[in-house]
């Protein structure tokens, strides 16, 4: 605690967090003082907040700053994740301006809470201290509980919020318990000090460290939706408003992985084999459960929920690989996933009308005839999620698998590949319905509002761009991942 008081507070390091939180408060303030604020105003404030935060994030690049005696850091690892979160948040803000969402979204609350959730994510990625990590996680979680229940008139949305809250609170308990164990074993919350301690004591003699580590994985696994902690995902995804679902599926997952990478890589130095067995089993379980469950879905949001479980499994493969390539592949994959998944959700959102959302596969019948461009884009996102070239999904998976083969985990890669084959079927089903079946009625939605077009354009650009020219990003990632490992 001493160094906390003596070390200078390096305020610039938390500028991205502060600017985002400020934007959130401004949105709230406008909501209080203007009886009926225009949503474009709130939208503008949020977007500006996100852009300013991104600007500060970029400014901090390569400076390796740390603040509050090392409680919060801004290394390139954290900054990259910041950009992924901000990208996800920005795209979701854009997506939320869809005409249909207007009907039920309380824009003041939505934008403010979304920004606060993003603040939580930034804190999670930038923490080298377990309590700060917990603080970030709770900020994120509580915001998400609110966001999930934002469709106040719909039972499904309320159910989803409540379910998410109950299970989420439970998992926070696990995480906290784990942190307590780790503190007991090491006498510190600081990841670097824990790492030093772990390196000196063999893990097999360190029961509390093992218990603590497992409990932390459970707690974070809930956020990432790793099987068997994924049960909430389908119901919550289905019930929550579509932009919120997109935000949860991408941002919250990436935040969980950021924390997991930090804990796993910087605090368990030298304990490779013990950890990989646990993660290996979790990866296999997550992929298989996600894909097999997704096969039986006819609701697109539930399908994407299970598919997001499966994708968490693929991403774990990169952590199991336990090398630089693996860790940077995880980041690359999360970035790719943000683009392609938000793209898919943006299309679901734009196809919805006041009459209701088009959520069953059969609602997409004949989309290619009525709205060819929308269908082509949806097909692109589906193929990317399935991992077909030349998309980001393919290159991302390729990197992950390469890392795992490099580490000698060939059976794991074979299982992952078999899982990809299973996943093909349900992604292809969406494409088949859109292109090869005739619809009985016209599809009313699919209006290209400027904001939605921008979301889709960015998502497409990202999906194809990362697929065609991945080198630049990967090199950056590998560069700084080497430093945290």
């Amino acid at each position, binding site marked *: 605690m001493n160094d906390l008081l003596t070390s200078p507070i390096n305020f610039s390091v938390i500028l991205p967090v502060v600017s985002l939180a400020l934007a959130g408060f401004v949105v709230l303030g406008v909501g209080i003082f203007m009886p009926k604020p225009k949503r474009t105003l709130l939208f503008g404030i949020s977007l500006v907040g996100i852009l300013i935060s991104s600007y500060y994030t970029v400014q901090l690049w390569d400076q390796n700053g740390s603040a509050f005696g090392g409680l919060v850091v801004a290394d390139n690892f954290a900054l990259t994740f910041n950009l992924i979160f901000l990208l996800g948040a920005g795209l979701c803000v854009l997506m939320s301006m869809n005409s249909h969402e207007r009907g039920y979204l309380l824009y003041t609350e939505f934008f403010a809470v979304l920004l606060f959730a993003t603040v939580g994510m930034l804190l999670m990625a930038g923490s080298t201290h377990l309590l700060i990590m917990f603080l970030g996680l709770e900020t994120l979680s509580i915001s998400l509980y609110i966001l999930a229940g934002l469709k106040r008139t719909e039972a499904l949305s309320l159910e989803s919020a409540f379910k998410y809250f109950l299970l989420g609170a439970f998992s926070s308990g696990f995480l906290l318990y784990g942190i307590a164990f780790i503190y007991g074993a090491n006498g510190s919350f600081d990841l670097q000090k824990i790492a030093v301690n772990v390196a000196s004591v063999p893990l097999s003699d360190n029961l509390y460290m093992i218990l603590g580590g497992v409990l932390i994985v459970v707690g974070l696994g809930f956020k990432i939706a790793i099987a068997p902690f994924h049960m909430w995902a389908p119901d919550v995804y289905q019930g929550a408003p579509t932009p919120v679902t997109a935000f949860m599926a991408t941002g919250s997952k990436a935040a969980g992985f950021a924390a997991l990478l930090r804990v796993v890589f910087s605090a368990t130095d030298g304990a490779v084999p013990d950890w990989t067995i646990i993660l290996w089993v979790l990866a296999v379980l997550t992929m298989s459960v996600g894909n097999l469950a997704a096969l039986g879905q006819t609701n697109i949001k539930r399908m994407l929920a299970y598919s997001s479980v499966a994708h968490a499994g693929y991403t774990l493969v990169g952590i199991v690989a336990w090398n630089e390539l693996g860790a940077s592949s995880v980041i690359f994959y999360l970035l790719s996933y943000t683009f392609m998944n938000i793209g898919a959700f943006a299309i679901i959102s734009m196809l919805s009308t006041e009459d209701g959302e088009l959520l069953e596969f059969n609602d997409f019948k004949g989309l290619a005839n009525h709205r060819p461009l929308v269908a082509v884009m949806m097909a692109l996102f589906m193929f990317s999620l399935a991992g077909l070239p030349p998309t980001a999904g393919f290159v991302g998976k*390729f990197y992950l*698998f*390469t890392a795992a083969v490099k580490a000698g985990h060939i059976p794991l890669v074979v299982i992952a590949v078999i899982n990809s084959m299973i996943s093909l*079927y349900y992604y292809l089903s969406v494409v088949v319905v859109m*292109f*090869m079946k005739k619809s009985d009625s016209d599809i009313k939605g699919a209006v290209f509002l400027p904001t939605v077009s921008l979301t889709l354009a960015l998502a497409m650009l990202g999906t194809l761009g990362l697929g065609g020219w*991945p080198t630049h990003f990967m090199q950056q990632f590998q560069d700084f991942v080497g430093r945290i490992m």
Partner: protein
Amino acid sequence: MMNFPILTLITFLPLAGACAIFFIKNDKPKELKITALMTTLATFLVSLPVYVLFEPESTMQFMETRSWIPALGVQFKLGLDGISLFMVLLTTFLTPLVVLSSWNSITKNLKGYLISMLMLETGILGVFVSLDLFLFYVFWEVMLIPMCFLIGIWGGERRIYAAVKFFIYTMVGSLLMLVAILVMYFYHGGQTGNYTFDILALQQINIPLGFQTWLFLAFGLSFAIKVPIFPFHTWLPDAHVEAPTGGSVILAGVLLKMGTYGFLRFCLPFFPDAVSQFTPWIFTLGVIGIIYGALVAMVQPDLKKLVAYSSVSHLGFVMLGIFALNTEGLQGGLLQMVNHGLSTGALFLIVGMLYERRHTRLIADFGGLAKKVPVLTAFFMIVTLSSIGLPGLNGFIGEFLILLGTFMTSKAYAVVAATGIILAAVYMLTMFQRVMFGKLDKEENQQMLDLSKREITVLVPILIFIVFIGVYPNVFLKKMEPTVNELIHSVRQKQAQTLMMDEKSLARK
């Protein structure tokens, strides 16, 4: 001239055409069709100088190397040798004919059809010219999507079933190949310190036999599904029957060859020991394919299904030729790949023309057409004979060389395979007789029109090559010979090395 990136141009020209078509309005079918035709014709014309300038040597020519993902050693590397040259030419030759053949038959979403067709061409050409495994894999998968759309959108009654089956079957194979590619990549990197996906570099190393077996199986499965080798052929009849004519022609003409090409390009040079280990299996499956395909073709009431099963039979021959591993067999196999593309392509085109006239493909619905449509009958006759392997036409040369090569390796297989030619005569001639001769007793057939000028234009180029290869195959054989010999030489050499090492280790024991 040699520095000009001509292979890139050939590969991506169709894609450029597809982009152009994207911006043409839907209600201008004529402009759409003409753009597509011009693009494919231009691609063909650009590929002609490649043939002329191609030196009959065993080396890769027209090489282009650009860095793509340097961190992983992935390059954008293209090149042509005596094997891929003919596949490229076959593709660029058939595609314009396919576009021309679907001039009137595609009414629904013409734009999408043409875009799919052009993207398919880019994918196929990319597969044949890639010299980097990563790049190869990308093209290999990219090509699936437009083909799946072609079957699933413009196909017949059960098109969705066929499209999904085609897609999943092929993907199952190729994903396992992806794992094998990665394993090879790291093995090569570990041995030489040079982490690369460069196919030519990967061909240089020796892999231990146990390892080879698994890798061969992983690569082989994906190619075997594509060829298709019995018992992986069940997707083929469905895909063919449901696909629109153009799709069938490309599928039979070029797509199936990607499987046999894969065996030639990867399995033989990468895993020579596994090849000698698996040759009896491949021979057996090949022969089963020949006989089984022919027997099943014999009882098909549907013309398209008959031609589809005949493909299974024909490709069995190609597999025999390739694994005979001698100059005759390999050259025959390679030539037969081209021949099958021409003959079966033409057969599908003619079946499509009949279908356009009568909206049925059942043999029983025809009969006695020769009196009404003499020109069509003449074309059909020549193509049928070429498919059977009549001396003087292309099919004969290929099959003869294959049987010669197989006979030198193992007589029994050659003898059994030869009966396949007799069976081919049985099913093809019976079919021809039932469709064209006999009584013209169906009312609907009375008014049948003969071939239009457009249709004749589609068929004549194919016929020219059918006759030309039959009479003077040397023009083609000469260009492929050095590559084929070099391939056999290197495979044999590697096999001999392993054999010597085995003997040494035995002696030591």
